[in-house]
């Protein structure tokens, strides 16, 4: 398989991973009013059971409860990598399709690699640091 074919296959495979994990993320953040799955917002149910008001998915109690779980640590890093690769590869393809001069072609590819690796390292650090912090609290 030539290099581009391989990368394209990974692009499609990453799309499948994103579909599942981003689907879960969207269920948690934007569909929770209609589709109620308790495990996705762990602090909400407990808060309501204690007579507290409705918590939002992004309230710290929910964020902390998710951050402390190994499941979220692993899937967030997986989603981070898959979405960065899928999105940046897709964006470079859009530029390449416009037939730019060779220097621009190369610059855009290099920029995608630098931005992708940089944000992957940063996001992975944040997920691990949040996991350790939530565990300690």
């Amino acid at each position: 398989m030539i290099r581009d074919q391989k990368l394209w296959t990974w692009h499609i495979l990453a799309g499948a991973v994103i579909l599942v994990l981003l689907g879960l993320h969207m269920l948690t953040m934007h569909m929770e009013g209609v589709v109620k799955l308790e495990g996705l917002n762990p602090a909400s149910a407990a808060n309501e059971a204690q007579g507290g008001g409705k918590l939002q998915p992004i309230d710290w109690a929910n964020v902390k409860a998710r951050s402390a779980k190994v499941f979220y640590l692993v899937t967030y890093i997986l989603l981070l990598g898959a979405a960065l690769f899928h999105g940046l590869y897709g964006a470079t393809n859009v530029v390449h399709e416009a037939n730019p001069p060779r220097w621009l072609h190369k610059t855009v590819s290099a920029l995608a690699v630098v931005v992708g690796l940089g944000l992957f390292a940063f996001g992975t650090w944040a997920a691990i640091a949040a996991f350790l912090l939530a565990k300690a609290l």
Partner: protein
Amino acid sequence: MSDTKHHPNRLGLWGWLGGGRWGMERYLYALHRVTGLGLLAYFLLHIVVTSSRAFGADRWKTAMDAVTGPLFKFGEYLVFVAFAFHAANGIRLALLELGFAVGEPIEPVYPYRTSVHVQRPLAIGALALAAVLVAIGTASMWLVD
């Protein structure tokens, strides 16, 4: 082997934004591209903003307070709609590209028949799935809270 020639991109942006005389799939292609690039732009910022959770409750709250208000809520809703379309249409594209739902190959005999008609039900199915997701998201984000 001859070198590949550099062809000028004469149609420019219109080449992929406009559907021309091609069917609805051509617009789905443009929308897939626009939503893909939009999701990417949002996602790159989202990584930076949400990493504030690593510094504890106060920093998290400060970051979230900076992105609240009606404008941000509407922007978030657009991101959700883009996700719904891109995900549903992405399933369609992946299926087609792997050779599903394109029909049997036929002899290229005049009058030529295009496989687009065979693919059409999948496109309609993808749009229906996107519509269901948007309906759930709309209810959840604007009506239920």
